[in-house]
């Protein structure tokens, strides 16, 4: 504020500032912006506080290691944790090669003005904006009805692939998270200085040799960041997996990619909307929410720290 007042003492104030009415609204306006920020912070605090307060007692080893019992009013959430982990592992395995490959192409090979490059960038940007429920519809229409049924027909099987399963849900989520991985991997590749590429190629290395032994190791933290972010997002997305593989309740754990599975986010949805006795379910419901939040936050925190390190390296150079 003092910095702003100084020139006014020397120079005539502009007409804009002379009307007394506006001078009065000034502090009010800047105060309001601060209030908005405070309000957001308070709401976040209330939500997190509420969940931690009612949830922490429920999260015990037994809760994490047991199956739901008595119509989900007792027992634990182990099958849901297992299903979530299986889902995101499959997703990452499918996603990373394509996402990183695309990022390498965009950053190292593509000419920025070529129509193909533009088409890819446009698609990736808009893929990120497609509603998650539409991904669910797509997974059902494409993976299950078209690919799955097609495979069953071609192989003369009954219904093996053409039904909701772990694999189709993972692939649907992989497509949903493709933009996240591409964007973070590209950022990571950009953070590798030009000189490294030039030095490597001046030594006679080919483009791919340069990428494999110079760029990828350097960009690894960024690629990991993208992978972790996609896992954290994948673990919380429910709409895309509702029709492509998640199950209300299963008495067994999935053992093959064609099995259905239980998932934490979907379990929360089921427990809070389909339970015959919500009051009885509540403690376990809060516990499940806290477990999911802890999982996603730990993942996000790791990603944020990794990214901060990468950005610091980038900032240190330029």
């Amino acid at each position, binding site marked *: 504020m003092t910095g702003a007042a100084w020139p006014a003492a020397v120079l005539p104030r502009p007409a804009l500032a002379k009307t007394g009415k506006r001078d009065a609204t000034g502090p009010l306006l800047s105060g309001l912006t601060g209030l908005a920020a405070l309000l957001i912070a308070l709401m976040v605090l209330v939500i997190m506080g509420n969940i931690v307060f009612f949830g922490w007692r429920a999260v015990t080893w037994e809760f994490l290691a047991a199956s739901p019992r008595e119509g989900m009013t007792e027992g634990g959430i182990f099958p849901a944790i297992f299903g979530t982990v299986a889902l995101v592992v499959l997703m990452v395995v499918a996603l990373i090669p394509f996402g990183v490959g695309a990022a390498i192409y965009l950053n190292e090979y593509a000419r920025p003005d070529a129509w193909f490059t533009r088409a890819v960038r446009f698609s990736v940007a808009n893929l990120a904006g497609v509603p998650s429920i*539409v991904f669910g519809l797509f997974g059902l229409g494409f993976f299950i009805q078209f690919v799955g049924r097609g495979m069953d027909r071609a192989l003369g099987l009954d219904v093996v692939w053409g039904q909701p399963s772990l694999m189709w849900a993972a692939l649907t989520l992989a497509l949903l998270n493709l933009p996240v991985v591409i964007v973070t991997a590209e950022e990571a590749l950009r953070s590798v200085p030009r000189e490294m590429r030039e030095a490597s190629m001046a030594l006679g290395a080919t483009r791919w040799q340069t990428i494999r032994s110079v760029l990828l190791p350097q960009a690894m933290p960024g690629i990991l960041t993208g992978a972790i972010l996609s896992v954290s997002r994948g673990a919380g997305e429910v709409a895309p997996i509702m029709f492509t593989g998640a199950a209300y309740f299963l008495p067994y754990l999935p053992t093959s990619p064609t099995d259905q599975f239980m998932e934490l986010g979907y379990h929360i949805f089921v427990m809070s909307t389909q339970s015959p006795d919500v009051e009885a379910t509540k403690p376990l419901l809060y516990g499940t929410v806290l477990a*999911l939040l802890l999982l996603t936050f730990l993942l996000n925190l790791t990603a944020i720290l990794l990214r901060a390190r990468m950005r610091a390296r980038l900032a240190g150079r330029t």
Partner: protein
Amino acid sequence: MTVPPAASRPALAPLRHVGVGESPRRRAQRLRERVISALLRACAFTGVAGLLLIMVFVFREALPVFLDPEVKKEASLSAFFATGMWQPVGDVPKYGIAPLLIGTLKVVVAAMVFAVPLGVMAAVFASEFAKPALREALKPVIEILAGIPSVVLGFFALIVLASWLQAVTGAVSRLNALNAGVALGLGIIPTVFTVSEDALRAVPRSYREASLALGASRWQTAWFVTLPAAGAGVMAGILLGLARAVGETMIVLMASGNAAIISGNIFDSVRTLSASIAAELAEVVFGGPHYSTLFFLGGLLFVMTFGINVVAGLFVERLRRQLGGA
């Protein structure tokens, strides 16, 4: 990728071995390089293919609504607007989508009214008024909010927020458009804030310094100089938030009560397009009128969000052009 400086080019050129006496090893290597580059190009193509396949397959499953005479008896474009009732399950199914459109509109407007002022003002605060330490403290708060899965926000709105709002407003139905709107607003605040703040921070320092040097105060600078300069970016943030709000599913599915009624009252329970798909698709007959109708609604959601996102992209482009020279 930028064009390399002229000096570095001649140094790279001789690496392309097109010599006469090329060794077999070199030739194999060159072949491998070409295969790898093609593979990477194919990876990049998955982005395009994904978007195209989504369009093709969502619309393909919706096609019977336009073409199949059996399906069209119950669900066709005219049937969607012939009745104001959405009763897809029953002896005489009714597929009037008006309640769903109005429901979506109500919830989205409520969410925007709640989230846009908060998100944009907080962004102005972070970029213009907050001390660096405070700004650094605000960032993780927004990141936490962004990291809360939508099913958790839906859970919070369903179990906690709905009771609080009902106690304040005295609404008859506990789950209503206001409840869903507030929860949905919480979900899109991070988008609005992050994009707006990035745009505000991208405004060159010289703009602010020039304004301050002319004697304007800090709020005058923020309000009359920085915010208009970043206007296109703030607009993009609002539009991206809007697109998210239109397509968001779990929050509205859990918080809105899901009653398909036509009413202008914000305290009435509502059913949105996305929530209808999520709630009904699991129980429909494959290929039937209901199934095709739900895919049609999905296609509608896709077209709306795609349109909004494209416009948002144009605003981002405009901001880059406007500030690019500085």
